[in-house]
């Protein structure tokens, strides 16, 4: 009998940003067990839950919506599944929504090929630099030389503009509650299958000329989606279009 592929979304905000991809995967398998959904196990001597997540989120980067697919042996109404997932979710990984997808859909990891990243920088860190000045600095990095990253013992080079095709959108915000001013920068960062420029690496490169440490600002993946060749985008679950930006 055919199994059911349930896709659910969850966020990693606040201190949840400090979780590694492996830690999130482990937390999700425990969440699914607590939710008592009829998950399917792999065959063999060490059976594992058939769970697949989307592209990894680097440590230190928050996310408004991440996705995972789990295979179920039995249909559970989406409303009930959402309810069970939400009540079994640990505080740092709240579940947002879920829906069934066709079993033949491509894997999340392969299909989700673009994301929107938001940097929130306290104005205090920027001292008296104007928005235009910051914008110029960021554009210089985006269109600048390759960034070198060590991966698995090898030095690899990434040309920022190959991964961030559009200039960053900057805006100034004032938080209502405490009157603190901050600068928001948004950009689309591509996630090609052949290997992507990591969001934390690019964000650190943007901040470096300004003398700002990545850990002193908030970096959030505000959208994760599939970018079609015609520039339109599709989402892993319906109703997750917020914050795409840079489109």
């Amino acid at each position, binding site marked *: 009998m055919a199994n059911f592929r349930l896709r659910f979304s969850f966020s990693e905000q606040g201190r949840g940003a400090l*979780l590694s991809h492996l830690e999130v995967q482990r937390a999700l398998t425990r969440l699914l067990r607590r939710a008592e959904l009829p998950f399917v196990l792999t065959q063999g001597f060490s059976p594992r839950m058939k769970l697949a997540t989307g592209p990894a989120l680097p440590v230190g980067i928050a996310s408004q919506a991440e996705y995972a697919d789990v295979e179920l042996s039995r249909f559970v109404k989406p409303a009930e599944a959402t309810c069970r997932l939400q009540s079994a979710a640990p505080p740092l990984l709240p579940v947002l929504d879920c829906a069934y997808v066709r079993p033949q859909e491509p894997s999340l990891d392969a299909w989700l090929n673009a994301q929107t990243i938001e940097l929130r920088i306290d104005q205090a860190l920027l001292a008296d630099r104007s928005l235009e000045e910051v914008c110029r600095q960021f554009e210089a990095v985006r269109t600048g030389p390759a960034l070198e990253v060590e991966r698995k013992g090898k030095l690899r080079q990434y040309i920022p503009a190959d991964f961030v095709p559009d200039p960053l959108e900057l805006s100034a915000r004032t938080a209502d509650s405490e009157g603190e001013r901050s600068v928001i920068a948004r950009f689309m960062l591509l996630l090609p299958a052949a290997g992507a420029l990591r969001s934390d690496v690019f964000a650190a490169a943007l901040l470096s000329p300004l003398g700002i440490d990545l850990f002193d600002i908030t970096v959030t993946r505000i959208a994760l989606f599939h970018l079609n060749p015609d520039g339109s985008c599709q989402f892993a679950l319906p109703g997750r279009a917020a914050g795409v930006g840079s489109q």
Partner: protein
Amino acid sequence: MPAHQLSEQFLRLAARAQYPSRSLDHEWGVSTALAEVQEGCEIPPGVLHGAFCYPASYELGQSNNAIKILTALANALPEVLAERVFLPGDDLRALMRSDGVPLLTLETNTPVRELDFLGVTLPYELSFPAVLEVLDLADLPLRAAERDESLPLVIGGGPCVYNPEPLAPFFDAFFLGEAEEELPSLMQRLTELRGQGATRAEQLCQLATLPGMYVPSLYEAVATGSGTRTVPVAGTGAPPVIERVVARSFADSPAVCGSVVPYSEVIHDRLAVEVQRGCSRGCRFCQAGMTYRPVRQRRPDDLLREILAGLKATGYDEVSLTSLSTTDYAQLPELLRRLKSRLDPVGVSCSLPSLRIDAFSVEAARQLSGGAKKSGLTFAPEAGSQRLRDVINKNVTEQQLLDTVRAAAANGWRRVKLYFMIGLPTETDADVRAIGELLQRLQEMLFEEFDRSLARAFTLSVSVASFIPKPHTPFQWEAQDSREELQRKQRLLEDSLPRRGVTLHYHGADTSFVEGVLARGDRRVAAAIEAAWRAGAGTDAWEGNFDLTRWEQAFADCGLDAVNISQRQRTLDEDLPWGHISTGVSLEYLRREAELARAEATTADCTFEACSACGACQAAGIDPKTVAGLRRGVSGDRQQARRGSDA
């Protein structure tokens, strides 16, 4: 600095550390009351707010069952809020110190110095400097006498508490024994006293009257003609002997405590269920074997019910049946069979932390592993010769070891880990060489009885520790081998090992020396612990951080004759610094066992045979008849084989 700012600052530092997720808390299963405080609720006035600390990283501390039991017990009381405290890693501690961020509790990020109490588990002697690291990072004066009314009471407990003297100046009190039955009344009494506005000194005087509580400031060390005694200061009314508290209703206490599920990977990342407490095998070197007596077992029905509920509550996919010797649990075959039938279909595995040396254990391990890849089995013969195994009362024969390794090889294992000790009382060079000879015979058996390729692929992984005499054991009077002697024996052992198929790992002679001094020292050792900590020994218990020169300097600076503490043979009537602490096992029994060891005579395990009158049952108010013979006729092959070989 306001609390939320401190918390944010700490998180920013944690983000820069190597393992940021260890500082996150907000795990699944944190108590509701603590979760509410995390969400911004105020702690109601009158609530006793404290924490239980494991003086090591989250990775180690969150694996510790005692911390889970203690926080669950305390948080079940409406007037108590109990958090966890662990020691951040080297990098994060350095960042905290440079930014002026003190040690915070895990759940609510409250500065530890603002708590009402701090309970500290003492897992092993080398962690003593880490306790000072905790106090210092918390911005607390190291010495109890220097802590004022506003600061938390620091209370020690755990496996190393049975000679608390080397730590006496640093602690306000120690709790001796098992917490299940007495912790609630201790917490309640403390809440009342604080509510009444009792001073720190008044609180401690009152606590000293409670079962298992030892308040070191009410005692003094007195040199006698024969050693050192710790006696109550005149007029304090403190009891001359402090009795260990035993959880008599262990079988009825919850087997699964709390359901906190860490985000970060911890050492024991699974549901741990204590199937029994205590071990009555009577190994004469083993402190835990004496200090957790008598054996108490949970009922299989209760265990099955609680394991299933615990798995459901946590989402773990592995359960570990823990105890000092789980394969001694009388109904283990029945429990394993019932567990497997429930857990296999949902992909949950089950593990045993230690195995005794017999075919039954191999069979149990085979059942548990199914067809999965078999990593290795671990057994502890401890000594190479039968003579020395009799001295230490390790009731294992060579034939049993041969049978066990044969069963392991026949069932698909290709590696067996074997634990031995050197430096044991009465040990001769022949005994040391006997380890190598035993390994040789194991290999010969493999080559004779199995396919040559299997025998060649089979690894005997040998781990050799140095014997350290521990308080409250029949060997508490024994001399410890010098480092030079241990190193000589290590070389002797290396020369006697088979040429191939054996890997050898030592527990360092240097760490064993320091551990021995800390284990049997008196209050004078405290100054050396402090000096070593100041020299950087704060995390000496952690792999790779130990440096002997720091300790040698500290001993010298404090005028402490550490070699004397370690290497002096005591007489059986010597006054010992821990003589005022009673574990329930009588001094007469320990002396009798010490003499039997010299006579190379063994004592039977009381759960198989008759009570050997150790005193633990009587002290705990438990009828020895409920313990003695508990397992008579159940997997009793070991005792029978032992008798057979004696004959």
